[in-house]
């Protein structure tokens, strides 16, 4: 198992945001996490990438414990994160955004005397092509549309070349066409990387969930199964899909 999580818990001001008994991820697996608002999905990713400190529990990545390490150490270990709200560098060009992300030595002196190699430029262009960013290469990242920013952030994570990608709501704010393209891209990426995706858009989940789907509710793992199993599980319908249906019916 690439990622193993046991008895992880964190609370904010007395409220249990997350209380996860067990979670594990195979190498090169694409896992989708769904759950209603406040289920602790983003908190879970925040803990893995070092943004939030857990109260207790253990997380091992590649057999090594990562809980309590700094963001940089975790990133160096091979975990890349895409945030729910696209987080890019608005004052830099798309190319520079990608250049900073690319896997290389990242200490002060390497950066000061850095020279771009053709191989690196090629890699950046290849990733940019995959995410349809080639035409915007020298635009300021702050001037991109919301969907393009989402893709730019995915491209940033891809260029970091992490073993595990944590992707938080990649399809938020995208058109149907863009969403489908994002799905296809994630499926392709899952051939070479392990990916955890958080998503609300059920159509999108159906598209990418070839393997397991984990359902989180109020910080706890409700169930884990294939998309078909999850979709037909009465508990899931009750506390998540069911409620949406009920809302739809009342409309």
């Amino acid at each position, binding site marked *: 198992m690439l990622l193993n999580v046991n008895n992880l818990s964190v609370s904010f001001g007395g409220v249990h945001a997350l209380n996860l008994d067990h979670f594990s991820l195979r190498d090169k697996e694409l896992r989708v996490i769904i759950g209603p608002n406040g289920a602790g999905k983003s908190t879970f990713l925040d803990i893995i*990438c070092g*943004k939030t400190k857990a109260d207790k529990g253990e997380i091992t990545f590649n057999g090594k414990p990562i809980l309590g390490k*700094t*963001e*940089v150490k975790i*990133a*160096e270990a091979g975990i*890349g*994160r895409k*945030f729910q709200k696209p*987080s*890019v*560098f*608005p*004052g*830099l060009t798309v190319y*520079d955004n990608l*250049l*900073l*992300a690319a896997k290389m030595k*990242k*200490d*002060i002196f390497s*950066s*000061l*005397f*850095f020279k771009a190699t053709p191989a690196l430029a090629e890699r950046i262009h290849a990733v940019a092509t995959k995410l349809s960013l080639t035409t915007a290469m020298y635009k*300021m990242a702050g001037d991109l549309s919301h969907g393009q920013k989402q893709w730019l952030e995915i491209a*940033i994570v891809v260029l*970091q070349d992490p073993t595990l990608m944590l992707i938080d709501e990649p399809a938020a704010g995208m058109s149907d066409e863009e969403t489908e393209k994002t799905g296809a891209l994630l499926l392709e990426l899952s051939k070479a990387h392990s990916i955890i995706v958080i998503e609300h858009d059920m159509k999108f989940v159906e598209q990418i969930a070839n393997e397991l789907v984990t359902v989180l509710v109020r910080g706890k793992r409700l169930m884990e199964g294939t998309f078909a199993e999850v979709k037909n599980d009465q508990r899931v319908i009750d506390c998540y899909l069911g409620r949406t249906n009920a809302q739809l019916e009342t409309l």
Partner: protein
Amino acid sequence: MRTKTNPLYYILFIAFFAILLPAGYLSGFLSVNTISVWGRYFCFAIAALGIDLIWGYTGILSMCQAFFFCLGSYGIAMHLLLKKTVAAGAVLPDFMAWNKIETLPFFWQPFHSFGWSLVLCLLIPALFAFVVGFVLFRSRIKGVYMAIITQALTLAMWLIFLRNETNLGGTNGLTDFNTILGYNLSSSSVKLGLYMISFAVLCAAYFACYYITHSKFGKVLQAIRDSESRISYAAYKVVDYKLAVFVVAALLAAVGGMLYLPQTGIITPGRMDVKASVEMVMWVALGGRGNLKGAVLGALLVNFLYSICTSLFPDSWLFILGFLFVITVLYFDKGFMGLVESIRQRLANTRFKTPQTTL
């Protein structure tokens, strides 16, 4: 927006200050005081480059640059004063004798040597910045808290320098020097020489900063300004980068201070009071932050304006500066350079649009 600068502007700038002004002085149109005054502005511009690196590019508002500037000035002042004292056959500078001090304080000793003075003028601010930066950046202090803490630190240092017990001349500061490395400071040719050295150092500092900001290191700095969390999830050690740029900014301020001292002939704690440290930040804000040319022009223009205004309307300088600052914040937040840029773009747009509309 980043546009390629026409090399013509650099050539004009260098030609004006390196040839035209000295030529004006040599042919008698300008007094040596004018030359010396501009020489001092160059020192401010060097410090402003440092402020632009740390504030404009990295987004850290450091209010202790005036203190680093003074550390440079005080170091050179101590050396000059000791040289004068020894030449006069005394052991202690006058002010110490008046304060009834019998032996030269230990921290004055190394300043007998010019070489050690230079080293210490750079080493002390760098070390100070390193220690302060290490503590602040590791505790993830950001934004307005950073500004408040560094301002408080400058204020504390100002109070320490004001005290006679610190043995740095107290409120009166250090003054009344006569030679530097054997050259008479009041001679016109030495003043011109210092002017040229300051200008050369300013140019060197500008190009060093240009290299830094255009390297990947500079891009990391801007990335820290834009999104500190994103850059640390991309495995950059933010603390290292912030520390490095803080030390570089402190060094630039100190170099400015070192060159400033022999040209003014006096350094008092007034150079690092709250007003002075805010003013230094204002040069960069008015010139255009995140733009090296803006920092240099801002420092030069604001100080030039200061000398004009204080002779025309002596009492209203602070009102004028405050008014300029408010206008800048309200209407052109990218300062003077941002204004030039937007005017140029508007002109380009109209030129571009006219043929289209007529077609």
